[in-house]
């Protein structure tokens, strides 16, 4: 089995504050990996280091064996890394369809084309409709993103990431703000992605984490505390103490 | 040689002080309140005209006019904020630019109508004219006065904005008006006060600047670049930034003109481009 993502001693600090400290993580291709930990543990920071939104203080990032530490965010995307944001980061003035077509054009390379109209890009448009249908966004296709309720904007957030057909998908609390029933549907869609897609997700909803993750890393104070299968994590008293507390159904 | 370097430095700092004085009002309205107010120069001009009028018609001494100018222009600013500016806080920067350019055009035409297109004279009191010579260095009295005024203003403003609850409430209101109001901050009142502060300072800057910059109806357009430069290079959202930027610009401009006069206007633009290339958000920029 090949490694999809590997980090070596990845660290990030601001002034004296260490948000990520020496994180070495390795995900095999096809992993369904959850990253959990207390608020402010450094999970989002870690994703930002992986995607290149933040520059690490030290350490390296490898994607499919290639060192990408110094690549710009969009160059990492070109190599198969896609993400969602913890707080919606969308195109408020574009319609849902436009947003998704735009994302697909970026992936397919059509976005450089300036002498043909968008309406002529049949392949991209069909793909967009398929994606929208899968996420049940098709009936909102023509609405400007800004007019969608929060929960449905979360779906657009995911649609944009999926449009990149990523090899590595990074999800930062994808189900936040979505009713429990529907959030598991979202996870079904995500889980239904091809097996060679590697997924790393952050989530505070333990129902979802324990249902969908095959392995879990617990981050505390910027450092990995432990890593293991859901059962191992649920049983770990240290994790209970700093993070889970007395969750009834775990 | 040493005296000439010192002299140049002094002149540069003094010139920077003047730049800061006429721009500080803008770093309140634009830097802190995030309103791109290109009409800043119009308020400064109004301050200048008021100062001249008070001196000529009412025979007031120069220094005594300054507090009056501050108050009067602050009131004008408050009135305009209530009636016009407040409708544009939500608008894009572009709309604000256009609106305030429109106001500037109107102000220029109105000033021409009232005062004619000519320069206005200003007579400084005797103790502010001429030079003093401590230790063989020639120091202009008015320039010393400018430096002192700037030091005081900067410090006071900085403390007001960074250390007081009022300052925090201003910043909160600017960051997110809905959230601020929803948490009980009287956003409208805070904005009108802050805006009045900014315009009042603009007025004082205009009055203090006449002696060096002159005063005619095209003032707001002529010096617009300078105000913008100072605030943009300094970075929005702080008082320190523009102060530092103004001093840098002042010193470089003066030194450039003294040592390499051939470089002319390029020094100031060159410096600006270099600084903005390295600090795209300004020296003390607000993080996105």
């Amino acid at each position: 089995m090949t490694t999809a993502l590997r980090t070596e001693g990845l660290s990030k600090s601001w002034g004296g504050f260490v948000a990520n400290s020496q994180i070495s993580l390795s995900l095999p291709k096809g992993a369904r990996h959850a990253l959990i930990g207390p608020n402010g543990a450094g999970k989002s920071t870690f994703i930002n280091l992986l995607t290149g939104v933040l520059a690490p203080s030290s350490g390296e990032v490898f994607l499919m064996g290639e060192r990408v530490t110094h690549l710009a965010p969009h160059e990492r995307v070109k190599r198969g890394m896609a993400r969602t944001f913890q707080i919606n980061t969308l195109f408020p003035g574009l319609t849902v369809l436009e947003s998704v077509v735009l994302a697909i054009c970026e992936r397919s390379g059509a976005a450089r084309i300036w002498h043909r109209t968008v309406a002529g890009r049949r392949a991209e448009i069909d793909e967009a409709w398929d994606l929208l249908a899968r996420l049940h966004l098709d009936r909102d296709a023509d609405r400007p993103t800004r007019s969608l309720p929060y929960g449905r904007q979360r779906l657009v957030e995911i649609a944009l990431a999926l449009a990149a057909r990523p090899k590595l998908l990074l999800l930062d609390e994808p189900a936040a703000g979505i009713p429990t029933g529907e959030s598991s549907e979202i996870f079904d869609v995500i889980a239904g992605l091809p097996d060679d897609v590697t997924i790393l997700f952050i989530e505070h909803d333990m129902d979802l984490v324990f249902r969908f993750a095959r392995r879990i890393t617990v981050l505390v104070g910027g450092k990995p505390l432990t890593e293991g299968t859901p059962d191992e994590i649920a049983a770990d008293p240290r994790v209970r103490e700093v993070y889970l507390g007395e969750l009834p159904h775990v | 040689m040493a005296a000439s370097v010192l002299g140049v430095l002094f002149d540069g700092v003094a010139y920077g002080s003047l730049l800061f004085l006429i721009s500080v009002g803008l770093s309140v309205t634009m830097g802190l309140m995030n309103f791109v107010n290109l009409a800043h120069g119009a308020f400064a001009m109004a301050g200048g005209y008021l100062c001249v009028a008070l001196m000529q018609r009412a025979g007031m001494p120069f220094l005594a006019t300054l507090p009056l100018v501050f108050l009067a222009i602050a009131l004008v600013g408050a009135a305009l904020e209530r009636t016009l500016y407040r409708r544009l806080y939500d608008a894009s920067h572009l709309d604000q630019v256009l609106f305030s350019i429109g106001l500037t055009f109107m102000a220029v035409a109105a000033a021409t109508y009232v005062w004619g297109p000519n320069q206005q004279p200003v007579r400084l009191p005797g103790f502010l004219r001429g030079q003093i010579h401590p230790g063989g260095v020639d120091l202009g009295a008015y320039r010393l006065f400018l430096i002192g005024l700037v030091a005081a203003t900067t410090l006071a403003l900085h403390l007001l904005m960074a250390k007081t609850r009022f300052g925090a409430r201003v910043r909160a209101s600017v960051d997110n008006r809905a959230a601020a109001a929803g948490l009980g901050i009287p956003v409208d009142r805070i904005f009108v006060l802050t805006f009045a502060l900014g315009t009042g300072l603009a007025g004082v800057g205009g009055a203090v600047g006449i002696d060096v910059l002159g005063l005619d109806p095209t003032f707001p357009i002529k010096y617009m670049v300078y105000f913008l430069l100072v605030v943009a290079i300094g970075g929005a959202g702080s008082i320190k930034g523009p102060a530092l930027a103004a001093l840098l610009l002042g010193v470089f401009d003066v030194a450039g003109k003294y040592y390499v006069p051939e470089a002319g206007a390029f020094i100031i633009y060159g410096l600006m481009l270099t600084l903005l290339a390295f600090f795209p958000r300004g020296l003390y920029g607000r993080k996105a």
Partner: protein
Amino acid sequence: MLRPFPTPAAVSPEEDVIRPAGPCERIARLPADRWTLRETAFWLMPVLGYFAFPGYLMLGSQILIAGLFALSLDLIMGYAGIVSLGHAAFFGTGAYAAGLLASHGWHEPLSGLLAGAAAAALVALPVSLLVVRGQDLGRLIVTLGIGMLFFEAANKAAAITGGVDGLSGMEIAPLFGLFDFDLFGRTAYLYSLGVLFLLFLLCRRLVHSPFGLSLRGIKENSKRMASLGAPVERRLVSVFVIAAALAGAAGALLAQTTRFVGLDSLSFQRSAELLIMLVLGGTGRLYGALIGAALFLLAQDILAGLDPVYWQFWLGLMLVAVVLYARGGVLGGAALLAGRIRGKRR
């Protein structure tokens, strides 16, 4: 398979209608290039104007040129979100390039026009690298500063540009070797109209293309664009250079039709007026640029004729009024109004 999500709360009645997305429907609301009747009517106006107002052809061609210039600003501002206070730098560069060619023995207009556009694009390249880095405010200042810098440079290089005295004494050969540039401005008008129309078609195609869509994406949220894999800065550089070339073409047209280039072609005043025109018409819709240019120059002509001394006052008032009451300019206001009326009818 999943069961469908519940319908979201309906804000407007149209949401209740669930449409099956047929192949035609599927692209109906994406940027396309179909030519509408309204557009044809629009472009007939300048043609009719040629016959209806023979005494105003100079004004007409200046409107067309300003329209082209505004179009160029609309590309970067209305679509890519870069506000510029120094766009005259490229206009002036184009004007001087074309003017210098014409005054140094190269009289053919079309190649001069191309040279103007190319020169502007060339200087825009390094400038754009600086501009795209910054934020709103930084860009405002950088463009302003660059504009000033170009102005000073042209002033300094008086030996080449003529400095404040301007560049005169250029000679323009007849268009296609046939049509002389006459005192009545007929050739100038038709020449400008032709160039504007062709370049407009180009812009129209560009903004409806995937590239154009990606620009809108950048304007809406450049952070997200980067995380979709878009090379944001490179895209902005491309459109900036294209826009500069258009501005250069506009400048070249002006140089050729007036046979004079002054420092004012690089001035802040010109950049500011350009901004006003565009906003008056409405940004991000191409036609706004053309309508704004026409309105501005007509208003300037009429107001300056009525009240030469204080017309600036009225111009200022107009601007303030547009921003306060007709956000989105003439076209934006019209669209809003149309929306209201349609809404009422339902």
